[in-house]
């Protein structure tokens, strides 16, 4: 079953076109890793899917309906398509628990008790039950990102978007975040993940997309794209990345 269709997605900044007509179908349960050199348009593609950026042309289709541009439509999409940012974007004036409760309280209008119970559950899932009352300023990078994941999960998204979730982390903190993402994969969640962790992509993704110059240059199973790439640019990209082990 297809959750999301992308049709002819074009994004321009002024006169510069950074996405040249992307077509993409996301099936339920798929885990798609998006790879590509810096500036190839990975973030832009991901951010167009939940309208953090407004597509210049093309359609995002959910439930057989192209998503409109009114605020009401965008809000509906964003509740179904969660996003985890490279820089976490936690709310510094709220505790970890407050961050996770916020969407349930303000957007879903749940009661405080219901929202708290749900938020505690999500924090426990990412292994941070004991940090509920801690403010983001007193959390490590890995903990912050796990709170951000819990915040997105609390909204019950059908699709999760991760934009380089471990790139801002010290190397020793990457593992704890990847483990959480892997556990979400094991639950069968649908996700799109921009990452430079090729080994992780190989083991966790069901499909790998290689983006170059705002186009899907090559895609296939992790084995096809990462081990037996057909295109010259994909090979060059993989070669330029430091040795990774499968």
């Amino acid at each position, binding site marked *: 079953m297809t959750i999301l269709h992308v049709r002819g997605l074009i994004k321009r900044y002024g006169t510069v076109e950074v996405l040249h007509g992307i077509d993409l179908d996301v099936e339920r349960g798929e885990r798609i890793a998006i790879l590509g050199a810096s500036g190839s348009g990975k973030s832009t593609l991901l951010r167009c899917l939940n309208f*953090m950026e407004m597509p210049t042309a093309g359609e995002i289709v959910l439930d057989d309906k192209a998503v409109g541009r009114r605020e009401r439509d965008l809000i509906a999409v964003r509740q179904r398509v969660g996003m985890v*940012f490279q*820089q976490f974007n936690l709310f510094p004036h709220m505790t970890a628990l407050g961050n996770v409760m916020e969407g349930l309280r303000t*957007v879903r209008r749940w009661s405080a008790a219901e929202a708290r119970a749900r938020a505690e559950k999500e924090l426990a899932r990412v292994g941070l039950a004991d940090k509920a009352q801690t403010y983001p300023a007193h959390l490590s990078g890995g903990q912050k990102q796990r709170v951000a994941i819990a915040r997105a999960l609390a909204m019950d998204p059908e699709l999760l978007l991760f934009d380089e979730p471990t790139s801002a982390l010290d190397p020793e903190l990457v593992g704890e975040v990847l483990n959480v993402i892997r556990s979400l994969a094991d639950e069968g969640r649908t996700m799109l993940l921009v990452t430079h962790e090729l080994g992780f992509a190989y083991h966790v993704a069901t499909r790998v997309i290689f983006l170059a110059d705002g186009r899907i240059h090559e895609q296939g199973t992790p084995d096809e794209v990462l081990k037996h790439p057909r295109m010259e640019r994909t090979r060059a990209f993989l070669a330029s990345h430091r040795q990774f082990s499968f």
Partner: protein
Amino acid sequence: MYQWDFAPVFAHWPLLAQGLVNTLKVTALSLSCGLVLGLMLALLRLSPRRWLSWPAGFVIEVFRTTPPLVQLFWFFFALPLIVGVEMTPLLAAVVTFSIQSAAFFAEVFRAGIVSIERGQWEGALAIGMSHRQALRRIVLPQAVTRMIPAFLERAIELMKTTTLVATIAYADLLFAANDIAQKTFRPLETFTVVALIYFVVIFGFSLLARRLERRLAVGGEATVH
């Protein structure tokens, strides 16, 4: 050698007390109206729609670039000619200083709001908040924390500026002083006492303000990333 004699001044203490109360009244009313109005002006100013942002910008500029006394006279003497309703000195003072503070606060609010990183908006929008919810729940609470020093400074400035209301015969502290000086023929003592009252009130307030600022700076939670 001048013979200091404060007794006649203190004999009129009820006048002084009433004057101080009136000064504080104008200040407090203007500050609270100014805050609400200032936030509205700031939001209009930030609107992408020009027919909203330009008029707001115009009001802000006019009130920031004309002398407060001219504004006060305009609302007290000129406005009634247009609307055909008498202005009481208190009303004219509160209207003038509210809008004037609003023009000032609007810029503080605007600066505070734009100082909040884009990522905060995105974090809020990404969980399905509307623009308005993101502003109210995420952006404004953080912006206001950063604006507190500017607010406190403005409150002090405003209390000094309110002395202008004496010119339209509103019985503030300065007006009371003038009254007492004429009744007692003791201007030296009277104005000395009044200056001291202003000093004590404003200095006390600024001490409080500084303590509050330090508390916020040390607390850190709300401001540090």
